[in-house]
């Protein structure tokens, strides 16, 4: 059995008596007190998530842009230093290897890739293999990089006094490299996985950086820590994909509703297959749905038509704390994917009524 890793914030979680569970090889906090209360607090005010388990790679060298154009689906050439981009790595069959964020540090020459913790090894091997023959060097900085997501509508106002710029002036998917409390070179990124506003802070795990920032956020600024449970329900309310649920090696970005980041003005691994799929049309599609009664849809439950035939399945589902109803993402046969279609969810062998709705849910 592999021993589980701990992030630099583990002792804080443990001291707060967080419910800790294994996640992607790490011992991570699922909740501190209540998933629902934590969820609502982020939507209404602010919360701090330790997501240091995520992976970070640096790609640098003269052909960095060329390599990224080849292995990712979005157009990296539009990135300038200070801008970030949501994208995917896909395989030759156009299945999603991972979804990721690319940060442009030096135009054409230096980028940071942020990948899912569960995919660090797979992504690394894939990128290494694709990089053969390119003038680039790759560095996996995951272990020495801390990542705190500080999310919620009050974050901008709370954090700005500690910065030499106004966070309100930082557009979505832009970042600045700045110091906070003497901690140097923090990447302050206007990104996140909650749709609640706020930033993600990347910094090196050295000296007492981790403790200093944690204490600033959770003690001085009184921003409560939030576990992975609320992170999941927050992202689900916004309809964001989670790897291993909505995305996997056999799902294409077009099926997953990621056509908006799939750019055919360049060639990339899998692009021919995606072009064909775009032309022919997808046969299944990721949709949002909510329940018309009190029941709660969960991952793996089947979607049914009125005749009781299976037409798809749920990839993520929960009770939305904001809507107070069961919401889910799932793949459905294209014939049933129209907004407001009436479908059913097989919940413990009962067909419960549901409706396909527009994303995001909130």
């Amino acid at each position, binding site marked *: 059995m592999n021993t589980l890793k701990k992030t630099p914030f583990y002792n804080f979680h443990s001291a707060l008596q967080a419910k800790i569970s294994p996640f992607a090889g790490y011992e991570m906090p699922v909740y501190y007190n*209540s998933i*629902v209360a934590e969820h609502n607090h982020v939507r209404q005010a602010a919360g701090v998530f330790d997501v240091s388990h995520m992976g970070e790679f640096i790609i640098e060298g003269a052909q960095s842009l060329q390599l990224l154009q080849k292995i990712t689906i979005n157009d990296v050439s539009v990135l300038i230093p200070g801008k970030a981009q949501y994208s995917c790595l896909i395989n030759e069959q156009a299945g999603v290897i991972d979804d990721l964020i690319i940060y442009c540090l030096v135009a054409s020459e230096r980028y940071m890739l942020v990948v899912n913790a569960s995919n660090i090894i797979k992504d690394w091997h894939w990128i290494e293999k694709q990089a053969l023959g390119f003038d680039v060097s790759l560095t996996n900085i995951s272990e020495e990089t801390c990542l705190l997501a500080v999310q919620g509508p009050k974050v901008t106002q709370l954090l700005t006094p500690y910065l030499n710029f106004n966070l309100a002036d930082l557009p979505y998917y832009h970042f600045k490299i700045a110091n906070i409390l003497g901690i140097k070179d923090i990447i302050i990124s206007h990104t996140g996985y909650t749709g609640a506003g706020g930033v993600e802070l990347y910094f090196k795990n050295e000296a007492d950086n981790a403790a200093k920032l944690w204490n600033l956020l959770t003690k001085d600024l009184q921003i409560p820590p939030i576990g992975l449970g609320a992170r*999941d329900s927050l992202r689900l309310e916004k309809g964001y994909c989670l790897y291993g649920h909505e995305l996997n090696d056999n799902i294409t970005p077009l099926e997953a509703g990621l056509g908006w980041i799939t750019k055919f003005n360049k060639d990339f691994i899998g692009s021919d297959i995606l072009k064909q799929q775009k032309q022919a049309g997808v046969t299944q599609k990721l949709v949002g749905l909510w329940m018309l009664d009190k029941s*709660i849809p969960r991952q793996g439950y089947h979607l049914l038509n009125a005749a009781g035939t299976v037409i798809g399945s749920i990839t993520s589902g929960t*009770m939305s*704390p904001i809507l107070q109803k069961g919401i889910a993402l799932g793949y459905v046969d294209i014939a049933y994917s129209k907004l407001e279609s009436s479908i059913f969810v097989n919940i*413990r062998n009962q067909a419960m009524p549901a409706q396909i709705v527009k994303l995001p849910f909130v």
Partner: protein
Amino acid sequence: MELPQNLFYSKDHEWLKIEDNVGTIGITDFAQSELSDIVYVDVNSLGKTLDGNAIFGTIEAAKAASDLFLPVPATIEKFNENLNNHPELVNKDPYGEGWIVKVKLQVPVDTSHLLTAEQYQALTRN
């Protein structure tokens, strides 16, 4: 962790209170704390007579759904309707206002497979 002495406990983390041939069933303080936020309690077995260990409903926490197991053979007579609008009562008061069902027991009730408060506490310590 609260553990009333006058209850029987199951390995599946239900408690059973026996008053003559009427049983009251809920989940333990330990179970509610492990599940965290209870958001829905679904009992679809009203009026049914079920074997011991049968699933009589489902309890949904924010993160996942868990089956509810009947500690002893019984007929499900009443569901705690307050849980429809306030499922969080199971978290707040698992042995009181958060009770889940009342059942008609088959007398005499065989409780030999159930645990005392002390035995249940030993179970949850591991």
